[in-house]
């Protein structure tokens, strides 16, 4: 190219985006207090204060909405705002005088305030039918239904501890649901259908065979064309083959749906981080409101809220009472599907007599 093109300049430096009260107190914060649901104050060694109002966001945001946020931030926050690691939007102020009018405006816009402290925060989620080729369920739709149903727990702080819900629309787990208090995971339950007519053009057969964690795929010649076949009994529907090869689609309206996983956590607070574990193997995709999913999750939340001790995350609670007790209390039927049968399965068998009856 003739003209030198500008690349690799990286993101803008964050400093230019910080409100003055932060710039001045950067690294000097002393403590914080939660003033009420969705509102907290950080107090600096200098005595300065920083007020935060956290509002719900659906994450999928139009430019129109972003501009509305900007209008509010200009009006109340000197033109500053931020988003959180769980995709809520936060408004930052150096005094408390604008808190109430800001909250009123946000509510008018349809953005509830909350998610701070012992509450449910926004559901980390993914693309679903909006944009991904891999999805076994929708993302934004399920999230909307679940949060509509659980909204009281977002707006209030009446839970024993934090409750982190996440959704991923396929086993790739872009929503990183593997360490959530409650995880909603889209799953396929039908082996890939093979497009024998095109596979040889689209995919490298050796990498397709190699992609399968259970060695279910082997090369085969079909109708004179090089292709692959799938030993269906060996397929556990991970879709890794499809990621590698477009000619092996997995999605299937009759068999796709949602599974529910619980008891994971990320923070090191008290208990070490934990993976989520399978609670409900399958619930149907039932758009637009996914009633089976919202009911199941509400039951889980309420069971935990009623029985856990203060500060006990979902997984900590279940660890204390034991999984058999959890299954009895929740009424969820324990099935073969709950028993691990992958690489480290043996380590999940109960190797003690620590049982409750």
């Amino acid at each position: 190219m003739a003209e030198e093109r500008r690349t690799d300049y990286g993101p803008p430096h964050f400093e230019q985006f910080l409100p003055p009260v932060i710039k001045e107190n950067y690294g000097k914060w002393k403590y914080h207090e939660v003033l009420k649901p969705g509102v907290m104050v950080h107090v600096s060694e200098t005595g300065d204060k920083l007020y935060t109002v956290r509002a719900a966001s659906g994450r999928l945001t139009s430019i129109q909405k972003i501009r509305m946020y900007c209008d509010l931030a200009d009006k109340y926050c000197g033109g500053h705002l931020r988003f959180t690691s769980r995709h809520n939007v936060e408004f930052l102020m150096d005094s408390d005088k604008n808190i109430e009018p800001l909250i009123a405006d946000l509510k008018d816009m349809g953005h509830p305030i909350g998610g701070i402290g012992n509450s449910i925060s926004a559901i980390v989620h993914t693309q679903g039918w909006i944009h991904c080729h891999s999805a076994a369920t929708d993302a934004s739709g399920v999230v909307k239904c679940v949060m509509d149903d659980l909204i009281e727990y977002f707006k209030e702080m009446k839970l024993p501890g934090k409750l982190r819900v996440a959704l991923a629309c396929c086993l790739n787990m872009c929503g990183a649901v593997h360490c959530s208090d409650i995880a909603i995971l889209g799953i396929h339950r039908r082996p890939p259908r093979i497009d024998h007519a095109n596979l040889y053009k689209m995919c490298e057969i050796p990498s397709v065979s190699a992609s399968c964690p259970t060695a279910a795929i082997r090369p085969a010649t079909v109708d004179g064309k090089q292709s692959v076949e799938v030993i269906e009994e060996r397929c556990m529907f991970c879709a890794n083959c499809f990621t590698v090869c477009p000619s092996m689609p997995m999605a299937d309206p009759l068999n796709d749906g949602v599974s529910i996983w619980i008891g994971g956590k990320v923070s090191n607070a008290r208990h070490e981080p934990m993976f989520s574990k399978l609670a409900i193997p399958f619930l149907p995709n039932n758009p637009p409101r996914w009633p089976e999913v919202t009911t199941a999750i509400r039951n889980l939340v309420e069971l935990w809220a009623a029985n856990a001790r203060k500060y006990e995350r979902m997984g900590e609670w279940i660890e204390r009472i034991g999984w058999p007790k959890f299954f009895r209390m929740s009424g969820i039927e324990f099935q073969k599907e709950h028993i691990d049968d992958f690489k480290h399965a043996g380590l999940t068998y109960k190797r003690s007599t620590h049982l409750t009856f």
Partner: protein
Amino acid sequence: MANTLPKTPMLDELETGEWPSFVKEIKMAAKENPMSSDLLALLERSYKEKIGHWKHGGIVGVMGYGGGVIGRYNDLPEEYPNISHFHTMRINQPSGWFYTTDALRKICDIWEKRGSGLTNMHGSTGDIILLGTSTDQLEPTFSDLAKIDFDIGGSGSDVRTPSCCCGMARCEWACYDTMQCCYDFTMAYQDELHRPAFPYKFKFKFSGCPNDCVASIARSDMSIIGTWRDEIQMDKDAIAEYAANGMDIKSDVVDNCPAKCMEWDGKELLIDNQYCRRCMHCINVMPKALRPGKDRGATILLGAKAPIVEGALLSSVLIPFIKMEPPYKEIMDMVERIWDLWCEEGKARERVGEFIQRVGLGNFLEAIEVEPVAEMVAFPRENPYVFYEEYFEEGDDDEEEGGDDE
């Protein structure tokens, strides 16, 4: 250009309820934008048919960059022509997701002109996601963004866009400057971020303390998590105040300490800091009274990932404690030794965590020249299958020293 919106009876049901409605967002955009309008119609169809309508993306992108754009085509291009291509652009967010309204408005203006008018604020890795545009708009979008100093993020087998918690900007517990560090790493690895050359993706996430508010231990190949080495700072008056205000320090704090290293006699709180695991719980519960120590730094962990292929992993300890000071040379040198090794010996689509499991942590450490330390394991081996690399032969000089094991 105000559109009439497609009929979407199913989606319309998602306009009710208190949680912000993504359907409303799409409709807001769709009024102005034919791509979003087609998206709305296609999504309604997916809701009816219970299946997505997107095909595997081809390789699309902007010149000179190997990643940052997710190609996407729908499988019914005649019916939904405005989104026959509908590629997503990942834009590297500023550290901590802080913005001025000015910067945001400029992004909106670009995306109004060049794309669907829809975004994710933010993607799950942390990028600003510009959700859907056509192939011909990719290059112009990039050049518009360049003018406002926003660059493209990662995708494919490269360094993915690093992210961090708000750290020192708003949090009293940040044990190092996560935002600056995230920025510095992002800048240091611009080439690796933009030009995929690894066996698979590599993610960095920076959290200021063990609360890990960016889930780095679960979601990044390298997790850099703030911690401290000395004693928890304690304000006795503030403890008394919490107690006076009705906090049950025994059951709320002491009984929840995983190290069982605290005592409360109703008056004085004792912490046996030599056993404290830096879990943060007591500090979380009494932020006015307790604070991380003063000798601060970070624990560096390696290898987290989602399940595909060999199962999900959390990161595991590589450096128990390191002072976090720019230019982070020691860490970056190590990162580069890790990449060299992994690029040489890693298999395609093998994340670094899986790679370590395959070759064994001991061998991995030898190859990257890091000494094994007990902090790297939850517990030593339980099986007696120990590889010794050498053995004595009859007639060896040191034959008497049967106790020496090399």
